[in-house]
């Protein structure tokens, strides 16, 4: 097996240059690569294009990078919960591409799978369709959408082995596996890193072939946005 372990987030991200296109796994704050984000904030690179379903909150997740003006453009499906984001957007400092969530997911999946373009019904008849090819199949209208890749994909898994195999937990899976496949360089951080052979081959969510660097992260905060419990 091929050993892809690196020491930590700093080492994993050390060659990411200004102006890179990055994908970040996560849905809201669930399943985000916390360690890689911290290291990117510390490194201070700028002019980044970030592909992420959401943009974090003011003081956590990608919000931390926004605060330091590292992000030039966000490609997302929903960007609420973030005042600084709104300020930069309105002032013109930040560009945003809003994409229907399913189209975003499928474009990323296509990018990793070598599919340059596909047809999807989402957004037909809306402003999302502006400038896009429309075609009818079996009486229904579809838009042509293209595959998305990134220079680096930053993903977070629950467990992983040093050959890059990943297992996710709960709904922290979300965009992580498809982004892992769509990154030219994919950097995975895991809560627990084990030796090859310790994970059941039948139960791997992301095969190691998609992962170029892996490390065991630490101090996961796993912040909850809407802590909701049974009424007592």
């Amino acid at each position, binding site marked *: 097996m091929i050993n892809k372990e690196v020491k930590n987030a700093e080492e994993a991200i050390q060659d990411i240059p200004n102006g890179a296109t990055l994908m970040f796994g996560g849905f809201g704050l669930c399943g985000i690569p916390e360690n890689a984000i911290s290291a990117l904030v510390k490194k201070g690179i700028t002019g980044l294009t970030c592909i992420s379903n959401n943009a974090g909150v003011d003081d956590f997740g990608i919000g931390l990078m926004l605060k330091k003006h590292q992000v030039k453009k966000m490609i997302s499906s929903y960007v609420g919960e973030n005042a600084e984001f709104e300020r930069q957007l309105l002032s013109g400092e930040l560009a945003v591409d809003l994409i229907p969530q399913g189209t975003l997911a499928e474009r990323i999946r296509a990018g990793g799978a070598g599919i340059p373009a596909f047809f999807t019904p989402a957004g037909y*008849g809306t402003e*999302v369709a502006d400038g896009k090819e429309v075609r009818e199949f079996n009486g229904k209208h579809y838009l042509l959408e293209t595959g998305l890749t990134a220079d680096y994909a930053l993903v977070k898994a629950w467990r992983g082995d040093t050959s890059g195999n990943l297992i996710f937990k*709960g709904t922290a*899976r979300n965009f992580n596996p498809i982004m892992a496949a769509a990154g030219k360089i994919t950097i995975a951080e895991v809560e627990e890193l084990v030796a090859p052979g310790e994970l059941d081959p039948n139960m791997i969510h992301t095969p190691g072939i998609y992962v170029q660097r892996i490390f065991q992260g630490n101090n996961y905060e796993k912040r909850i946005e809407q802590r*909701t419990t049974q009424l007592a």
Partner: protein
Amino acid sequence: MALDKYGIAKRIAQEIEDGSYINLGIGIPTLVANFIPDHISVVLQSENGMLGIGPFPEEDQVDADLINAGKQTITTSKGSSLFHSAESFAMIRGGHVDLTILGAMEVSENGDIANWKIPGKMVKGMGGAMDLVASADNIIVAMQHKSRSGDSKLLKECSLPITGLRCVTKIVTDLAVIKVLPEGGFELVERAPGVSEEEIIKATAGRLIVKGNIPEMKI
């Protein structure tokens, strides 16, 4: 009397068929889950990657790695499954989800829906709404009949940017249950308890079809 949000959710719960897979949007739709009768088996889908949403957790069960599309902490239930976002929308787009219930700002009499953008206001994004409305065969909208400023939300044509065309099949509001006819037009099906036909007619800007005696909802 006009229904409150729980009343709307209760009435929608009556639309749910045994054995169906359902995607519930944020807001009133989420409340619907509380009113599904025990003898009916349904599976709730969460577009961030889960089938079989269980009840909210007890304090000691809270798990940051288990949330719904509204980012609330949830639990699994017996028979749940977890998957990634592309699989989740493959499920939605492929027509495997039987029923979608979501909120709206406006619905037009041919079933167009607008629920993601208000010109001049900060746009937060459409999330999964455009995929849901472009994919589902059966879409029920849960909303107030009129906006806070008193304007009808059931229109001839939507004035706000569209989320999807010709997709809404039924609307349950604080005042009425309304079917959107395939050929266009709002058909009044039920009145909220104590709400008159006249009141509903007055609150509906689009073409409202009223045939015969309109019964009151039973909730």
